[in-house]
């Protein structure tokens, strides 16, 4: 058995890693898998970069940021496997949500109307609203900025985006430190179940196939250990197929509920898996089968185009200066070659598309794309 350690954060989208260990998919592939629970993305990143673990459950934009040297010690990382698509939700306090459509389901179903309502809600608030995001280099933060930017809101001017780890969001909402947050599940469901907030947007409705967490390793490790990586990707593929099957969702939720993993009740973990989300206390669930995708539709296949989209947003928000070198480095984080070496018969990832505003992302015209978005809010 080859020992391998992977750091993760307590989130529903750690499911594929957890099931790979708990159900023996990793062991069958000859891997002695240790999952290292962490409480902040900074810790996950450091454990990976400094070699305490070989792999990490990581925000896709953070893998790009570390590679570009934007987040502490620069280290070339690779993402040979996507652990999930979608899975996030925006939760707002009842007070802030008052300005939105009174029918909760309408808010989620019509992100364009909700974006405009959100913009007017900012004006009615006595101060800048404070919205929690899990990390500056997270898909959630990029999606939230994209969505707000569409409605003419400048997220750096019109509101405060405060970074908090996902597990502290609910407490911050309770004490009034934040007016809402965008985070992975189960944290929105936890906030709703405690009557602290209402879900106002699904990530899956803002970007229908949004890249979310990836399995990240250091590039040098991936190159030096091809057999171990192949074995790992094979195990994760089998695990992801199991996790995505609806008949397994109950067992998966119970598995994730353990204190060593998500440490929240199974009934609050199940909604993201089954796509039946309760938007507010006492409401009937809203159905979205794509709320969290763990395997189907080539969900696990990485694509350099996703690195390019993340790069385009880094440029848009001034995190990185546009350059061919940075652009190429961002694309090279995603490694379909490694994925298909282990899993030759799997489908390729599709192009980057499916944004709520139907704007097309053409990888040959990134500068135009960024310019078109900038003009909205400047």
């Amino acid at each position, binding site marked *: 058995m080859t020992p391998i350690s992977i750091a993760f954060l307590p989130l529903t989208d750690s499911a594929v890693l957890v099931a790979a260990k708990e159900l023996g998919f990793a062991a069958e592939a000859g891997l002695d898998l240790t999952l290292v629970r*962490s*409480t*902040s*993305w*900074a*810790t996950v990143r*450091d*454990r990976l970069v*400094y070699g*305490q673990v070989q792999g990490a459950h990581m925000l896709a934009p953070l893998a790009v940021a570390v590679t570009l040297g934007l*987040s*502490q*010690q620069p280290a070339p990382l690779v993402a040979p496997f996507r652990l999930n698509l979608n899975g996030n939700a925006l939760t707002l306090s009842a007070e802030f949500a008052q300005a939105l459509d009174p029918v909760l389901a309408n808010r989620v179903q019509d992100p364009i109307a909700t974006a405009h309502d959100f913009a007017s809600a900012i004006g009615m608030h006595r101060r800048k609203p404070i919205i929690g995001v*899990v*990390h*500056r280099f997270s898909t959630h933060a990029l999606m939230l900025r994209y969505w707000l930017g569409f409605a003419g809101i400048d997220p750096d001017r019109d509101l405060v985006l*405060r*970074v*908090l*780890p996902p*597990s*502290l969001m609910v407490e911050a909402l309770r*004490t009034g*430190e934040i007016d809402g947050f965008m985070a992975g599940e189960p944290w929105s469901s936890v906030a709703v179940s405690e009557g602290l907030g209402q879900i106002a947007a699904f990530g899956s409705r803002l970007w229908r196939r949004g890249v979310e967490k990836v399995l990240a390793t250091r590039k040098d490790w991936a190159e030096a250990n091809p057999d171990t990586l192949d074995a790992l990707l094979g195990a994760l593929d089998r695990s992801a197929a199991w996790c995505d099957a609806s008949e397994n969702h109950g067992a998966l939720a119970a598995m994730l509920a353990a204190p060593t993993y998500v440490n929240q009740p199974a009934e609050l973990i199940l909604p993201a898996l089954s796509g039946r989300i309760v938007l507010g206390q006492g409401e009937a669930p809203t159905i979205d089968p794509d709320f969290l995708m763990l395997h189907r539709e080539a969900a696990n296949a990485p694509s350099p185009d996703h690195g390019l989209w993340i790069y385009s947003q880094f440029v848009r928000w001034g995190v990185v200066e546009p350059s061919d070198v940075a652009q190429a480095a961002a694309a090279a984080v995603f490694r379909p070659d490694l994925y298909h070496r282990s899993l030759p018969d799997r489908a390729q990832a599709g192009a980057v598309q499916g944004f709520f505003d139907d704007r097309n992302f053409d990888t040959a015209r990134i500068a135009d794309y960024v310019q078109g978005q900038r003009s909205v809010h400047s």
Partner: protein
Amino acid sequence: MRIAIVDDSGLRATILKEGLAEAGYTDIEVVAPHGGFVARLERMAPDIVLMDLGDPSRDALEEMLTVSRALARPIAMFVDRSDDAMIGAAIDAGVSAYVVDGLRKERVKPILELAIRRFNAFNALRVERDDAITALADRKTLEKAKTILMQSRGLSEPEAHALLRSTAMNQSRRIVEVAEALITAHALLDPPKGTGR
């Protein structure tokens, strides 16, 4: 030199603070990682921030260091990015250090080394305490099992203990596991009075 310790655990912060004071560092503030702690830190303008690696607020602190105007200079984590041995030791001990104004390595290194030693000392204390708690719980379990044997089989205390020990040895189990099994079985066979049956 101003040192900020971001920590929730009173004991760990105290252990670290005492060590730093003994080494001659006196300008030390302990900040609990709650609410507006980032703004407090910003006003404090420390030269170095020490915090528990496992603290969930690390992301918030890094965000502050990225956007803060007051602390606009580049930051170095774990003092020197090339010093792998020290970084490894710091991660193992669970301490992370943020040097917020580019202090020279020679000045920061002793602080971090001391922090690593102190964090290790704290961890040793915690292990000791956990062991003591376990030992106490084990002794209680043992006493309870012996009482059951003494009452149900009319044994003396040494006899009850000997029986538990020989059973454990025969089954290659810890004596406390045998005692637990006995207590569970006893509760099933003979429910305590007053349960409504």
